[in-house]
Structures are given as structure tokens and as C-alpha cells.
């Protein structure tokens, strides 16, 4: 079994939610808030929201979409906002641009909706991330398998989804390490292709372990 030159370092992550001073009481205010809010706020309402609700496999994608549905009762807008796959973004500004584009298209097509009061306000919040190394690392696929099994859901989310913002690559920490350190390109691609919207993070982890087991058995 190949041993990596650079071990995989597992970390634990924990987030604080910082309450911002912005809120939206209608669609127009949400649109303006999206334009002005910080990157940490875009992250909180998209990437972190997916991790927060990871046990839901249907109908939930990001806070903006959920609010459009539950507070504005605008299913079309909600579906279009929900369809933005966060794995396609390496930069939060790109994601903000697309969220704004969807909101603008809806606003232009339905100008009378801009000031219709929502059932409840949308509060813009920000994520504050704290990471701490877990103190264990993996050099082989077997060691990695043991490590990933002992990872909390939050830390799995950090390595698997949030990593692309850090790496600025369309991949994740796991796939990057498999490809670069163990030369396991196929395994890296299979894992990167897993659908986190129709799987819970726990089932995504179970699939990852299944793929590793297949690799170890080959």
C-alpha cells in the first residue's frame, strides 16, 4: 500500500454565528442585502446552511431559497435559488453574483413583488470559523479510512465542501489528497462526484468509505 509523502491532516471545525445589522422584510430588501452583505454572510447562508441541514435530503439547499419559499411563498424563485450548486463555486463573490442574477431576473419579471411584505424577516448573519487540528493524520488509505470514520459531520463538511473555497479548485481535501499523494485519480473523481444534495453528509461519508473499501479490495 502506497504511503503518502505528505500526510492527510484531519481538523475539527466549529462555527460561531455572528448576527449582522442587515435584515430584509421583502424581496427588494433581500436583493439589496445580497449585494451588500459580506462574503462571510454569503458563506453562512449557503455553504454553512447546507451543513446545518445536512440530514435533510429534499427541498432544502440554502437559506435564501428557503426564505423565498416559506416567507415570500414564491416557489419559482425558491427553486431557482436552490438550484445553484455550491460545489460549482470556488469564490463566494461568484456565488453572490449568481444569487443576485436570479433575484434580479425574478424582480424584473415581477416588479410588483419587490415590496410585498414577507411573513417573517430575513436576518443576514455571518459565519466565524475556528479550526483546530485533531492531532491525528493518515499516510495510507487504511489510515485515512479509520480517520474519516472518526470525523464529526461538521468536520466532514469542512473537508468535503468548504475546502474548495480554501483550495480554489473544483475538488475537495479528500480527492486532492488521493490524487496528489496516493495517485488514486479514479477514486478522487468518484468521491468528488458524490451528490451532497440528494445524500445526507452521513450517507455521503458511507459512500466514501464504500469506495475506499472497493479500492482496498482491488
Amino acid at each position, binding site marked *: 500500500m502506497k504511503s503518502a509523502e505528505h500526510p492527510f491532516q484531519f481538523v475539527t471545525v466549529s462555527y460561531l454565528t455572528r448576527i449582522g445589522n442587515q*435584515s430584509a422584510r421583502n424581496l427588494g430588501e433581500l436583493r439589496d442585502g445580497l449585494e451588500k452583505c459580506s462574503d462571510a454572510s454569503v458563506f453562512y447562508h449557503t455553504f454553512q446552511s447546507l451543513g446545518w441541514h445536512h440530514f*435533510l435530503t429534499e427541498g432544502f439547499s440554502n437559506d435564501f431559497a428557503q426564505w423565498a419559499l416559506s416567507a415570500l411563498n414564491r416557489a419559482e424563485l425558491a427553486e431557482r435559488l436552490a438550484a445553484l450548486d455550491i460545489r460549482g463555486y470556488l469564490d463566494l463573490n461568484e456565488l453572490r453574483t449568481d444569487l443576485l442574477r436570479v433575484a434580479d431576473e425574478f424582480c424584473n419579471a415581477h416588479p410588483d413583488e419587490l415590496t410585498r411584505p414577507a411573513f417573517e424577516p430575513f436576518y443576514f448573519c455571518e459565519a466565524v470559523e475556528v479550526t483546530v487540528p485533531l492531532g491525528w493524520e493518515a499516510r495510507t488509505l487504511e489510515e485515512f479510512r479509520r480517520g474519516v470514520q472518526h470525523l464529526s459531520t461538521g468536520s466532514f463538511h469542512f473537508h468535503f465542501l468548504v475546502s474548495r473555497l480554501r483550495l480554489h479548485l473544483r475538488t475537495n481535501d479528500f480527492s486532492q489528497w488521493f490524487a496528489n499523494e496516493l495517485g488514486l485519480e479514479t477514486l478522487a473523481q468518484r468521491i468528488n462526484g458524490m451528490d451532497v444534495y440528494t445524500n445526507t453528509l452521513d450517507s455521503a461519508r458511507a459512500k466514501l468509505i464504500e469506495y475506499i473499501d472497493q479500492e482496498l479490495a482491488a
Partner: protein
Amino acid sequence: MTEIKTETKRDEKTEVRSIHLDDYVALLGEPEIDEIRTLAGKLSGRTVQMVNSTAMGGGVAEILNCLIPLMDDLGLKPRWDVITGGNAFFEVTKAFHNALHGGAYEARKEDFDLFHATTELNRKRLQFDCEFTVIHDPQPVGLIESRPGHAGHWIWRCHIDLSQPNPDVWGFLRPMVFKYDAAMFSSPSFARQLPIPQYLAYPCIDPLSEKNAELDPAYVRSVMDRFGIDVGRPIITQISRFDRLKDPVGVVRAYQIVKRYADCQLVLAGGGAVDDPEGGVVLEEVRHAAAGDADIHILDLPPWSAMEINALQRASTIIVQKSLREGFGLTVTEGLWKKKPVVASAVGGIPAQIIHKHTGLLAHSVEGTAYQIRFLLSNPAIARKLAEQGHEHVREHFLITSNVKRYLTLFLHSMQSS
């Protein structure tokens, strides 16, 4: 209508449980617990002081009773101090509390003077030498004046809704709040615009407490027998004080609509009718609305009924929380934790817990509440799925362990930022 009023009393002295983080492994799994330990490892030996206004009774004391031993178990050095004050002081702070919730208050200089004087006495009585000081709620907020220079990290944890405060009371407290390093609120909607960072800290439940721990089914059965509730037919339950803001009469109306379509019973269990004059009036209104229906059970329970409430929730088919206004709604959290489908109003902190059609059902009216109850009674598979997802939502976000983790994260972030 059947009505039970419990007469028995017991010693109200708080028993502080011996709690260890490992007690929660079975519920949360080893990875989650180990990662809390990893975060705490960076804070080993750090001193933490929690200050509030009461050692027993009330949600804050209940949380600190868990939090302090858990922080100790994690290697921090926590200390819990309680401020003292005479009846007059606590009458003033009660008036402040109501005013901060938007209630009427006529500003009186002597109230503010008494607040300052009592704060001064507590400043002399208590020591402030910890690295992290967390002051809970408005009563001890003035202790910030005891901060030695800019030493340590001072956090104000506000458990109440400040969205529409009385301007006189808020104007009095605000300069003190501004001196903290950060504030924590239970909901984004409770926060104010402040020049200091504000963080979200959802309230939480202890899954191992009397009110939430697993119960022997025989005990649950005995409680239901004692209250004359038929476990063979659907039971719809609202646990809450007899308070207009909890809309118990609205719950009776919703049940009466449901009853036209499905055989079921209603349980309204709570307290507050003895020591709250308005509670007695509301209880009378509920009795009047429920008159003539033997399937409505009105239970006026004493404050030490945690296990009975636990049993009632566990025996229920559906939990309802039809509040007109709500803080966070921990009865919703309790119901979700017990894997019960919940129908609740979309007010206060409830939408954070009930994600409509995912972890429960939200309603905005008596008719809507009735419809959602009927829907769940007719669709038990959907009800089970909502209940399972609701339980998972609470497991991840609204347990005492999440609260511990949030404090650890805040302390680490404060250290890294300074």
C-alpha cells in the same frame, strides 16, 4: 373535561447532578464528543466566570447547572457566581425585564439609583479575575464596571427578546452593554444594533435531565392512568403555562375542529395559575371553552413536574405549540427530541426549530393548526418522518453539548482575535 390539580409538594432544593461529557456519547457519538474535547484542549486551565441572578429556578440557572460541570470536566476552571439584592432590587429588575420585552414602564430615578447601588454592592462582594467572564441577562450587566482595565474577555449573554425594548430602560442599560467585548442573543430577531459583535446562541435542552431523559414505558403508562388519559386513542398535547400568549383557548378551538374528523383527546398541561393572577383568569377561560368534553384534559401542574411532563410528551401522538408570541419555545425542542411530530406557530424562535414540512409543520391560525393536526393524524408515515428529522435537528443544534461547544468556540475566537 377532566381537570387535575396536583397537591403534593416536595423539597424544592436544587439537586446539582454530577455530569460528564462522556455521558452524552451514546446520544451524539464519539466523534462529536472527541471534537468538543479537542476544542477544549486549547483552553485547558483557562478560568471562566459565569454570573447570573439566581441559583435555582428559571432557564438560565438550569443551563448553568449543566454547563459548569461540563466545562470543569473539559479541563477549564469554571466558576458560577450569583448576584444578591433585596426584594426591591428584584422588583426593579422584573419591571426592567417586562419593559425590555416591550411592556409599559414609567421611568423612575430611584429605580435606576437602586440598580446602580446594588451593582456596587455586588462589585465589592464578587471577585473578577477570570480570563472569560460571561454575564447573563440585564440584572448583573453593570458588573462590567469591575473589569480591571481591558483585561480578560467580557461577554454579555442576553436571554431575552430585545427587539422592542422600552427606550428608557434600554437607554439606561445600553452604555453598560457597549463596554462588553461581545453579546450573545437567542435569536437574530432579539438583537439590537450594537457597536460590539453579536453572536447567535440558541437555547438548549439537556437530553439527560428529568424532563428529557428516556422513561420506562410502565412509568409513562402510570402517569397517563393517573391523569385518566386513554393511551389507545390519539393524544394531542400542548405543554405551557396558562398564559394568553400561549393561546390555550385557540388550541381548544383547533382541537374542536379536528374532533369533527378524527377521534382524539386534548391535553393542556402547564402551571402558572396559582401565582399569576392572569394565569387563573386564562385557566377559567380554558375551562369554559372545554366545558362538556370529557376528552379534554386540563392539568394544572406544579413546577416540580418534569417527569410527568416528560411522560405526557412521550405518550402524545402530536405536540402542539400554538403561541401568539414566543421566546424560543423549548417545549417545541422537547417534543422534537422525543420524536414527536410538532405543529407550532411561526413565531419567535419556533421557525428555527420547525422547518416547515421538514422537521414539523407551521401554522398561522386556529384553522391552520387544526388542518395540520388532521393532516398528521391521517398520514402517520409523514408524521414519523417529520418527527425523525426533527429529532435529528435537535440532536445537532439544540442540546446542551452544542451550547458547550459554542462557548468554547467563542473563547477560542476571542483569544485568536485579541
